[in-house]
């Protein structure tokens, strides 16, 4: 009995050391480069400062300002809704396409390359092209609708709050699904073929195989994808800013836009930093919820 326990703790110690050796390079870089900026951010969120030579401690002033500002909550709500729509869209489209191209069917490799294309574009180009395509006077969207005689007056997709919201969500999904698709494709490669065969023998059809073999097998990757996607799209700036500037009337206004405004237009870094810290805490909470829900063993 005793010897088993003794072996265990020696094993655990060896485990621990090996684990650390593997993970130290990454830890060094991240600690060196990211911890300082984040601590810096925490620090300046309590200061009224020009970041050069004037520092005035103001404590939680900016936090209180933000947490009692209705407009701040409004923007958070819009951002959360935007992120939710885009993430769900990306997960759905990415997973669906990954399953489709995982089949051994003719031309599948060509489709794989085509489906990756949106992600290879820089965000500015994506935003500007789609903005142009949606333009009532000069865009293909209206042109096609007119030609097919479906409308008799221009449709301004980005001009009304609801359609503008849908429009930017659509474009972000267009740009964002490939990374999810990529992750799913890699994840599916590691689901052993035997499991599918066993399920088929048990009489499961394609759909049931998907539910009972593919999805569970993808769980670790799905968790990673959900968390990171949520974080990325919650912090998103470029595509929406270039397409609608947060309009019409704030219906597509994202929190990153306000952080930029506070930091570089108003030169109010204290407030921008406080906002960033709030976002950080919010996203950490959300990630925590995700890992509970998706219940990853690790």
């Amino acid at each position, binding site marked *: 009995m005793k010897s088993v326990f003794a072996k265990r703790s020696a094993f*655990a110690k060896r485990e621990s050391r090996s684990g650390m050796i593997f993970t130290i390079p990454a830890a060094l870089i991240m600690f060196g480069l990211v911890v300082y900026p984040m601590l810096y951010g925490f620090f300046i969120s309590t200061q009224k400062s020009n970041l050069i030579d004037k520092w005035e401690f103001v404590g939680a002033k900016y936090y209180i300002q933000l947490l009692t500002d209705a407009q701040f909550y409004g923007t958070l709500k819009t951002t959360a809704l935007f992120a939710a729509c885009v993430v769900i869209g990306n997960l759905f489209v990415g997973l669906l396409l990954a399953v489709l191209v995982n089949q051994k069917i003719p031309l599948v490799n060509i489709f794989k390359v085509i489906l990756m294309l949106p992600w290879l*574009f820089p965000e500015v180009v994506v935003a*500007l092209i789609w903005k142009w395509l949606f333009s009532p006077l000069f865009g293909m969207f209206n042109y096609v609708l007119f030609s097919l005689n479906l409308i008799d007056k221009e449709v301004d997709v980005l001009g009304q709050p609801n359609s503008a919201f849908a429009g930017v969500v659509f474009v972000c999904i267009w740009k964002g699904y490939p990374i999810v698709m990529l992750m799913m*494709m890699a994840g599916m490669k590691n689901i*052993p073929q035997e499991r599918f065969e066993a399920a088929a023998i048990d009489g499961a059809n394609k759909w049931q195989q998907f539910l009972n073999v593919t999805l569970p097998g993808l769980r670790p990757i799905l968790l*990673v994808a959900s968390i990171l996607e949520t974080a990325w799209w919650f912090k998103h700036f470029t595509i929406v800013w270039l397409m609608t500037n947060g309009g019409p009337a704030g219906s597509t206004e994202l929190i990153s836009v306000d*952080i930029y405004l506070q930091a570089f237009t108003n030169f109010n870094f204290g407030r921008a930093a406080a906002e960033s810290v709030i976002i*950080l805490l919010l996203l950490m909470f959300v*990630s925590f919820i995700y890992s509970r829900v998706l219940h990853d063993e690790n």
Partner: protein
Amino acid sequence: MAGTRTNFIATRIATYSILIIMTFLIFTPIFWMISTSLKTEAVMFNTPIELIPSDPTLDSYKNLWSAYPFLTYLRNSVFVVSLATFFSVSISTIAGYGISRFEFRGRSFYMAFLLATQLFPSIMLLIPYYKIFKTLNLLDSLYGLVIVYISFTIPFCTWMMRGYFNGISKDLDQAASIDGANRFRVFGSVILPLAWPGIAATAIYAFIAGWNEYLFALVFINTTERKTVSLGIGQLIGEYRVLWNELMAAAFFALVPMVIIFIFFNRYLVDGLAAGAVKE
């Protein structure tokens, strides 16, 4: 058997329909991009809109090389992003394996910490990063940018590789070490070859993230000779005026290396050496 046959046809039709719709949605903007790049400024906003330019010209493309040092931009981007991707993926793969396989104190904290770095709005990182790199004398330097991009991509890549390694059964590790291999041998010779699809996906992500990154390249690089492709493209978007044809031509050109990279790595995604390797 007839049921399965209809099933088979239905699946095929559904698959191809969806793929074709996606292709259409993807090609429409690309088509418009190419069409715009072949127009002159005078006809850019003609109505009714010209899907195919009546008087196409390659001037925008020629201007890319003559008016701007686009070749230099391309060279810089390839250098920075390749280096950053290589180091980032290497370090992350090793770290991801470590987290996946070993129980060590602070493991959850480590993962949470890596994650937390991705949750902070990057615009606020700008100034502290700038100060750090000024102290290291790495401003206006391509090497400095490499390090910046490594720091940006490590968290995601580590998480991705860890998730991926979690999907490779630990039984394989056991089997290999029973056969007498030590930890590093197990990693290098047995598990790593199975990880290529994950590594490929991670590498593609890191490459594209670096290639399209704009804000930090903008603030860190001053000299024209060191600018990257994304800066070259960004310059064509002015406050008063967008040089549409040149912008589209530049974007098209910037796509090419990435498509090449993707096709190269696609091999590993397809031929995943993992397929069927595990017996349960």
